[in-house]
């Protein structure tokens, strides 16, 4: 493992499998009456959120607290940032207070990379989503969810996603979730297909390790998992698609379309969902939809990442593997 987690593309297959395996162990902690480990006692983690995000911040906070870290939450609103303070100064101020890790969410692509590589601070940096670039813990929790559902909770230990066919549908152009997932799923051996109107696929996608299709119905029968991305209604104002209704008709997932998927195939969504836009209530509330499971898995994944980046060699859970095994 590297010292920071900036991009899913930085993870090797073995790194990723180690994180997924560690997350399985972390998940067991959630089943205990006392959901807490002493691993990061005395370590301080700051959640540095320059963009509104309730679910990701809460998920990181839960993970940090379950590992007994001291947690500082920093949101840009009402802070010195809104008074014009630079990212560098904000980060250095926080580090001066003795922070061991910075979990950063930022609207500018590359902000976590800059934080980790500009010599501004020494703390470990974990990217919690940057602009339209990367959201590596989201990709990890998605892969974790897929491995559990498609390979098996116990059978999956030590395994990757070789040969699994994953379809990602929606606003790929503006999606850090799509970018992270393409990178990680490819590393884990899955076959990824992106489906979107051509306007929402970036120029340059031809070099990504995946297929691109404009026809959802053709891809669904060949999918083991279908991940629906959030599509903001405002996109139609920039002519990415004509209307909300046309988008839904061509690229939304409803019950009828879901029926074209193989029996075992699951429906995923990183949330928050826009019901009626990319996904109907019927699909969102069905057994096959893993959206709530993904949230729960997110805490386990983030515990695993924090532990592996900060915990050193001490076992996370009794009998847990150590980082040497990677």
């Amino acid at each position, binding site marked *: 493992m590297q010292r920071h987690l900036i991009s899913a593309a930085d993870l090797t297959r073995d790194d990723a499998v180690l994180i997924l395996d560690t997350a399985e162990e972390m998940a067991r902690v959630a089943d205990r009456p006392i959901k807490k480990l002493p691993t990061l006692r005395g370590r301080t983690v700051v959640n540095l959120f320059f963009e509104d995000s309730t679910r990701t911040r809460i998920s990181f906070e839960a993970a940090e607290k379950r590992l007994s870290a001291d947690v500082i939450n920093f949101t840009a609103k009402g802070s010195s940032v809104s008074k014009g303070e*630079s990212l560098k100064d904000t980060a250095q101020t926080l580090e001066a207070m003795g922070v061991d890790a910075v979990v950063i969410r930022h609207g500018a692509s590359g902000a976590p990379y*800059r934080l980790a590589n500009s010599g501004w601070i020494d703390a470990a940096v974990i990217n919690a989503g940057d602009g339209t670039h990367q959201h590596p813990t989201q990709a990890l929790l998605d892969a974790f969810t897929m491995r559990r559902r498609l390979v098996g909770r116990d059978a999956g230990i030590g395994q990757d996603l070789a040969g699994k066919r994953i379809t990602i549908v929606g606003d790929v152009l503006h999606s850090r979730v799509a970018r992270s997932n393409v990178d990680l799923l490819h590393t884990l051996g899955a076959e990824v297909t992106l489906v979107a109107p051509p306007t929402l696929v970036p120029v340059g996608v031809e070099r990504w390790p995946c297929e691109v299709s404009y026809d959802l119905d053709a891809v669904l029968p060949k999918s083991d998992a279908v991940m629906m991305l959030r599509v903001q209604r405002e996109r139609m104002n920039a002519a990415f698609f004509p209307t909300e209704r046309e988008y839904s008709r061509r690229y939304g997932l409803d019950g009828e379309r879901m029926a074209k998927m193989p029996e075992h195939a699951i429906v995923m969504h990183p949330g928050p969902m826009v019901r009626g836009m990319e996904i109907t209530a019927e699909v969102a509330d069905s057994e096959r939809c893993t959206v709530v499971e993904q949230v729960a898995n997110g805490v386990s994944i983030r515990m695993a990442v924090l532990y592996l980046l900060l915990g050193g060699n001490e076992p996370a859970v009794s009998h847990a593997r150590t980082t040497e095994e990677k």
Partner: protein
Amino acid sequence: MSKILIRGARVLGGEPQDVLIDGETIEAVGSGLSADGAEVVEAGGKVLLPGLVDLHTHLREPGREDSETVLTGTRAAASGGYTAVFAMANTFPVADTAGVVEQVYRLGQEHGYCDVQPIGAVTVGLEGRKLAELGAMHESAAGVTVFSDDGKCVDDAVIMRRALEYVKAFGGVVAQHAQEPRLTEGAQMNEGVVSAELGLGGWPAVAEESVIARDVLLAEHVGSRVHICHLSTAGSVEIVRWAKSRGIDVTAEVTPHHLLLTDELVRSYNPVYKVNPPLRTERDVLALREALADGTIDIVATDHAPHPHEDKDCEWAAAAMGMVGLETALSVVQETMVDTGLLTWAGVADRMSVKPARIGRAAGHGRPVSAGEPANLTLVDTEYRGQVDPAGFASRSRNTPYEGRELPGRVTHTWLRGKATLVDGKLT
């Protein structure tokens, strides 16, 4: 002492010769010239060029003296071998009146490091709506002949047409910053493989090419000359080549950084590589070099764009666009054009002095190195190789993409009308 003998200089890269300067003028060029009563500069085989002329410099004064002033910018120019620079109009206030251009012109004259020829804005406040008083700026003491809204594109086709027509009355030229604004909303870097990966807003080549295509056709229609600023794509080269083959009066410039750097560098998210137009691909870089060599692109212009440290020491999206370039331009041109065999030193003199002076109508600059001509000269140690150290820059700003990079060539002497502005690499 008013006489200077430059002994053993390779004039335009030719055989070593002596050049005798008397006062403001070159008195003689030849072998074994007498050093009688002259200060002698031993050139020792260095290359002597006519003083370089930059058609595209941002001096920032008035308004952003924290990043550059006419004094620091002209010192940087002298340091880089320049004897004349054209100062872009996007100052605060904008150089859209006779008053502002005269102020900038006079500051250049007072400091005496380099002639400063102000560029006037095409439209009031660079807003693209209403023509600035182009005639008044031309008739002012600054004698403006080049007009540009650089930093912004004159995107309204009617305004562009009128500007092209209007300046014909006094032999002016409009220098277009070709950037279709709607296609570049939120644009952060060249649109392609790298932007797709990095999640940075794409700046498509077509946003530049479509404006150039329109403007060469406008220039043809109204019979005007047009100059294209900082051309950056292979497609733009093709359009200019086509336009020239049709006899359209178009000239074009390329920056040193577009001859050397590609968008792969943006992977570092280091805003020192953030520039307008953005760094393009290897294919574009090679097309630009070839076009500069074959004359499709007429000149090298620096687009020297100083910014204070804090405007680059931040996340990519928040950073300012631009790079300083006056003090590294000749080295980059040697690296990309001369050492690659694409251009001779005579070719460099043509692209960096003769042609820019001609396009901008800069009298006394870009002249042959021969008797009777103004002594605007630059002596270059072409054998030198060294790492770029921004700490040594004369510019007030340090936003260079070449820090620590090894580049060839070093300007050791610059003379502005016989007066040394740079001696042994040190400003006078």
